[in-house]
């Protein structure tokens, strides 16, 4: 059963969109819970996205993609 990596609803205050500036893991590689996997930038501030569980990551949103709070950006299974 796959878990998803989602942009937390409280990661930043306002409702602006963000952009994925970096994936720090390769697609289809093992990740660990709480491991830093991506960076998202909102208004020139960068936020860190961590994995929610152990498993193999399947990346759904590419670098430079626009994302919002609540966006699903990867699956871990």
């Amino acid at each position: 059963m796959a878990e998803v990596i989602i942009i937390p609803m409280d990661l930043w205050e306002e409702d602006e969109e963000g952009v994925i500036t970096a994936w720090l893991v390769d697609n289809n590689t093992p990740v660990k819970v709480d491991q830093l996997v991506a960076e998202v930038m909102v208004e020139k501030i960068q936020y860190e996205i961590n994995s929610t569980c152990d498993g193999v990551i399947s990346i759904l949103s590419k670098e430079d993609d626009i994302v919002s709070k609540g966006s699903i950006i990867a699956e871990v299974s």
Partner: protein
Amino acid sequence: MTATKKLTIARAMAESLAQEMRVDPNVFVMGEDIAQLGGVFGNTRGLLDEFGSDRIRDTPISETAFIGAGVGAAMDGMRPVVELMFVDFFGVCFDAIYNMMAKNIYFSGGNSNVPMVIMASTGGGYSDGGQHSQCLYGTFAHLPGMKVVAPSNAYDAKGLMTAAIRDNSPVIYLFHKGLQGMGWLGTEPAAINQVPEDNYVLEIGKAKTVAEGNDITIVSIGIGVHHALKAAQELKQHDISAEVIDLRSLVPLDREHIIASVKKTGRLLVVDEDYHSFGVSGEIIASVVEHDHLMLKTPPQRITFPDIPIPFSRPMEQWALPSTEKIVDACLMMKEK
């Protein structure tokens, strides 16, 4: 084999700084917004929490004062790493850089080292105007007394930073905003690569062949390396095999590496985001020609920033910047000759 992880250049720089600060109490960092904010370009993120405000020091907006303070600290036995937020701000502090930092080893007859690093952001492409978008590689490389490095990816960024901090001579460390992984110019995924977790040194002054080829040598540095690598891929469709050299350092310049490649390919194209005239591109071409012009099948060419202030207007700036398309066109033209 040591463990590796994927890092942006910004994170690789911060990791090198942290690892050197853990083993050498003389290393410290100062500059504008480098402490609490973690640097406008992200390369000092997390350092204030670990090392505190004595070693991670926010400075007032006076480059003249804090670059001068860095030179004094370096001559007094410290190893300062000082951030000049935009290389374009060099004008107000160039006496400290060039008449003190670069020359004091010489002036002291070698009795005093100046183990100082200045890290500065370079490059344009995001409409920030002519006073925030320059590279100025040639300006620093022209003046004796300073080593000059400019990484194109996270692996090189970490190794070059460690080498710069440990060097007893002053080093200018120029990082391109478009490669930081901070989204300033979008993301260049090829700049985000696997980096060993342990610290390591990348020798300053060594170029690297990042794509092998037989028909033309493309020499570049920083973001130009990524344009060149994309061009080399496209050129395969035209049956042109391009070799791409990432200089990584401008001073010392790895002339032997460039010459060996041009000897093989017979063609030389230099890609440099710095201004066209009196700079890096001319120096590289001159170094090859004065070694042996007979190995060239066609006149050497260069793709550079034209000799104009960098436009604020997006269409005008994009027109002026080096690009993959310009490299492809130049290589096709050179191959036909």
